[in-house]
């Protein structure tokens, strides 16, 4: 927050009496209230469209594995599973890289070199997701099919995760493209959090003879633990809701497979692919119910993440 003291040090404005002042405050408050109204509108509108699908058997909807709009059979599990698996892969890949980047920038890089790290992160964050999807579809997927997946199958093939034919399109492709996309979020928030570690703490550690890594491990990381967890949850929230890039590389088949090489589906992808063509009220309702699930989960994750990041005493970064 841009400090509460500055705000309270200001003279008290907008006394009653002056008509212009009162009108101005009323207008401002209405505009601020519009944010709350927008939030209410989102919830109301989602519920209005979704309740058809959720009213009868909500648990059956969530646990069902069969998705067949023609027979009006709607089960959300393949999409929930695909979303969770691809997001888990992305977190697994992106977190070590993002933390490495953040530690490099804050602890190792001399100040003139810092833009070398922050600039690529900003560029990555600025690329539209459909462009990532295009690149994923025509560059990353063939590479996975030809190189990475056969390699993983040959070395780690004893795990069920890496079995089956290397298709290219699938959970692994979705997870990797998501990892690239959430890297800037996790990286930049971690950088902000690590910068907040008091210099005295780090100096104390170094004075006791710790190497740089020992200083990071024993002083910086424990101090910023909550903030880094917040950064990871923010990244997870982004990964769960990311639509275009995932839709283009996950394979779009509503099935559940143990292997990461297999084609799957995700919550945002099925909404993107089927919503415009959904004709029956039940189909639209089921898709809106998926949107409602997605909304609920991301809302929860974001609230937690904001509180965690704020706990480290800084203004939360906008992702």
């Amino acid at each position, binding site marked *: 927050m841009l400090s509460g003291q500055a705000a309270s040090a200001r003279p008290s404005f907008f006394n009653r009496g002056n008509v212009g002042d009162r009108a101005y405050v009323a207008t401002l408050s209405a505009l*601020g209230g519009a944010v709350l109204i927008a*939030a209410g509108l989102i919830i109301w509108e989602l519920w209005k469209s979704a309740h058809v699908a959720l009213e009868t058997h909500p648990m059956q909807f969530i646990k069902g594995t069969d998705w067949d709009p023609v027979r009006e059979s709607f089960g959300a599990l393949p999409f929930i599973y695909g979303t969770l698996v691809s997001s888990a892969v992305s977190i697994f890949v992106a977190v070590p*890289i993002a933390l*490495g980047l953040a530690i*490099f920038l804050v602890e190792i890089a001399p100040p003139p070199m810092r833009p070398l790290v922050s600039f690529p992160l900003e560029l990555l964050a600025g690329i539209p997701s*459909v462009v990532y999807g295009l690149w994923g579809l025509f560059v990353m997927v063939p590479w996975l099919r030809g190189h990475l997946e056969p390699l993983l199958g040959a070395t780690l093939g004893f795990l069920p995760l890496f079995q089956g034919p290397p298709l290219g399109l699938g959970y692994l492709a979705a997870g990797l493209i998501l990892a690239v996309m959430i890297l800037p979020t996790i990286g930049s928030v971690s950088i902000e959090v690590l910068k907040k570690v008091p210099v005295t703490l780090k100096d104390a550690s170094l004075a006791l003879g710790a190497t740089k890594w020992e200083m990071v491990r024993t002083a910086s990381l424990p101090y910023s633990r909550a903030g880094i967890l917040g950064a990871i949850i923010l990244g997870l929230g982004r990964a769960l*809701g990311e639509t275009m890039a995932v839709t283009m590389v996950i394979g779009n088949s509503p099935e559940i497979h143990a292997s990461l090489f297999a084609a799957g589906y995700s919550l945002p992808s099925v909404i993107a692919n089927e919503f415009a063509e959904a004709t029956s009220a039940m189909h639209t309702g089921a898709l809106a119910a998926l949107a409602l699930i997605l909304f609920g989960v991301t809302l929860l994750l974001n609230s937690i993440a904001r509180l965690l990041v704020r706990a480290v005493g800084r203004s939360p970064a906008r992702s």
Partner: protein
Amino acid sequence: MRQYPLRRVTNAVVMGLCVLALAVAVVPLVSVLWLVISQGVSGLSWSFFTALPSPVGEIGGGVGNAILGTFYIVGLACLIGLPFGIGAGVFLAERGDGPFGQAVRFIAEVLSGVPSIVIGVVAYGLVVVPMKRFSALAGAVALAILMMPTLARTTEDLVRLVPTTLREASLALGVAQWKTSLRVVLKTALGGILTGVLLAVSRAAGETAPLLFTSLNNQYWNFRPDQPTASLTVQIFNYAISPYEDWHQKAWAAALVLLMMVGLLNLASRLLARSRLQA
């Protein structure tokens, strides 16, 4: 305590891994930028910017209507979203310290993390269902809702940067408080707010998911807000998932156009921010 040489080796290895992380992160970035430029540049021509899309197999054709459509939808979104977003931000900066302000701030933060596809579903229910057709307006409403929370937060931060002394000087001269807020505080913060607006616009121009089932797509020029409208991002998506080689080529070229648009907006906001810092 372990031996010092061993500890130094561990240190060197971990620091090396951190540098490696940087290298790993840069690979996809360079690959994306290089491929979009190298694959896209051959497809660029004057007619690519001005012509309508051509059917499969036909030489020529462009994405003129999609470029115009993106400007059109984003422009409409600004008309709807900017007053609310900026207004809410000014509210947060000027009157946002009470419980109501705290609530607005928290909701704005949380809303900025809602997936854009969800906002698309909302805009579908709000605009497409009552109008009974896909339209540029529906896409604009979706983008406006997306813009609002982030714009509110950036505006708040920038308005709060205005020194209190400026405000006090104006008040001391007897200027009414609302006039001080509008003519002194907001006027000073204007450049900063513009930076935030440019960033919000560049983000909105890159959105695809909320447009898929709101503004849909259109093979022709469209200037009416109540008709389906092409957009660059949806066009890239459709070209990319098509089975045709020459459409893939067009997807790359259109992606290059999109990247240039988004990049220029970003650059403009950055230059603006820098010139303000120096002033």
